[in-house]
């Protein structure tokens, strides 16, 4: 079960990396104690050896106990679990200290203090150190949770958004068509619904390229109603595999940009070309639109949409995807490169 594991602040001490970290940290702690001029009389290395033996013994048994008890503790309130874990560790230190005093008698090892005092002192140290450790685990856990929430939020914020301009213009078109051409109005409402469903869906969702191309076609159909003959579209996407996976609304914002910044400012309109090529591992999709006279291009909105797509591509594909744009001879071209990934079956 993943859920309780993730929401519980104590790490899984049975996991190898955690166990290794416990050994390492215990040893560092043993160093601290051995370094402290407590005047045990022996030389540093034998001090260290004895302290290490004791500390490793306690922490490894403690870690094992916590590992075994973790499923039970995870069910409790984290404060209660912390208190139980803490009491357990302190009791463990006390018990082992008591056993250790027996050994010192057995092997005639030096003990600087009376056995009872030795046990109490150790329990004191154990109480403080385990308190600090538990607190550390708790903070670490919270920090990781926050980090996770933040990256989720960032991805959510990257949700593809369709321009409000498009929404209201479409509504206006539909309002006009309801009287003059009710069938077209109905179809337009269906297209609009599909587009907004896609834009309101989970930003992490992947869809197939076929679905994405269909969304683009719906979008262009809507704009075609509004712009009439000014908007012409050339599709050259037969080469593309329809089952390739990509984040929803990756291509549509680029097509929307092409209409908003390319076609709309031109009184006579123009043609948008959507061209797709593939090889074994990659897909290349190019959206090309004519550019009007300088000054009519609202570069800021353009960049925002492109940056949004780029960030989402990076979140999904890392460095394997890229988005480039260039301007040449009166045309603006956006090139999208994606790794060809099919749906995991």
């Amino acid at each position, binding site marked *: 079960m993943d859920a309780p594991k993730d929401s519980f602040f104590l790490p899984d001490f049975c996991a190898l990396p955690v166990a290794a970290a416990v050994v390492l940290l215990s040893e560092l702690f043993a160093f601290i104690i051995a370094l402290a001029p407590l005047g045990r009389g022996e030389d540093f290395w034998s001090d260290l050896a004895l302290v290490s033996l004791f500390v490793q013994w306690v922490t490894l048994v403690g870690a094992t106990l916590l590992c075994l008890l973790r499923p039970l503790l995870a069910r409790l309130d984290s404060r209660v679990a912390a208190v139980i874990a803490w009491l357990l560790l302190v009791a463990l230190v006390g018990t082992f200290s008591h056993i250790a005093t027996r050994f010192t008698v057995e092997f005639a090892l030096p003990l600087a203090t009376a056995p009872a005092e030795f046990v109490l002192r150790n329990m004191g140290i154990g109480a403080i150190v385990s308190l600090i450790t538990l607190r550390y685990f708790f903070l670490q856990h919270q920090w990781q949770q926050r980090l996770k929430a933040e990256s989720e939020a960032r991805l959510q914020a990257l949700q593809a958004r369709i321009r*409000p*301009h498009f*929404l*209201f*213009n479409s*509504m*206006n*078109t*539909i*309002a*006009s*068509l309801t*009287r*003059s051409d009710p069938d077209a109005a109905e179809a337009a409402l269906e297209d609009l619904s599909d587009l907004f469903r896609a834009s309101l869906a989970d930003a992490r969702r992947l869809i197939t390229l076929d679905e994405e191309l269909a969304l683009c076609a719906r979008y262009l159909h809507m704009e075609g*109603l*509004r*712009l*009439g003959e*000014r908007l012409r579209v050339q599709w050259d996407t037969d080469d593309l595999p329809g089952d390739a996976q990509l984040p929803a609304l990756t291509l549509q914002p680029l097509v929307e940009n092409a209409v908003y910044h390319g076609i*709309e*400012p*031109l*009184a006579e309109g123009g043609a948008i070309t959507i061209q797709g090529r593939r090889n074994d591992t990659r897909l290349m999709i190019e959206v090309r639109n004519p550019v*009007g*006279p300088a*000054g*009519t291009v609202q570069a800021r909105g353009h960049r925002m949409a492109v940056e949004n797509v780029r960030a989402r591509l990076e979140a999904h594909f890392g460095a394997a995807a890229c988005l480039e744009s260039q301007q040449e001879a009166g045309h603006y071209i956006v090139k999208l490169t994606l790794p060809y990934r099919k749906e995991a079956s």
Partner: protein
Amino acid sequence: MKVLVVDDEAPARDRLCRLLGALDGVTVVGQAGNGREALERATALTPDVVLLDIRMPGMDGLEAARHLARLPQPPAVVFTTAYGDFALQAFEAQAVDYLLKPIRAERLGKALDKARRLSGAEAAALAPADRRARTHLSATVQGALRLVPVADVVYFQADQKYVTARHRGGELLIEDSLKALEEEFGEAFVRIHRNALVARRALRGIEGAEGQCRVRLAEVEETLEVSRRHAPELRRLLRGGVL
């Protein structure tokens, strides 16, 4: 009441015309698909009200409104827009009214009532105080509106009363002062004399000695006098190639 409907989208025009058709005492006298067309129709048809879309190709609604305000019989302008255009907030106070698409019939009626109450001159005074440079210059010549793209202008020259805009296709007498033109088009034009502004892109060279300089320009035969005060800057511009 004569109304001119201006929008680049046919469905939007159709709907407006249908809504207007249902109102008493309102006649749609014409339609236009962009700013330039709107100015031509408005000059010919002398509407009382122009319903003007803001976002249009070529010349947008805001600029068209500025030119409309200069007509001999300026119409009242009501803006229409699909979504809170950045410009709208700034002009809200000055426009007769503005309507959000899809437009409601009763809102349209109210806007027309408002326009009816205002005389043409009052309405013209409400033309947007748009600070952006225009893309066109306009002037009425024998009752007809003439438009010249600013990009075609080679120089402006002032005489006693008028400013002449010399452009690719000829000359246009305009009412703007040289000072106002310099403020509006300062980025594209440079002052060379007390009475002349020259398009930076048209500058070709300077001839003559100090104090007797004249500037050569692209697209026109004549040269213009450069005043002593402006000569150094002009030379620097020509040398630096930063036109």
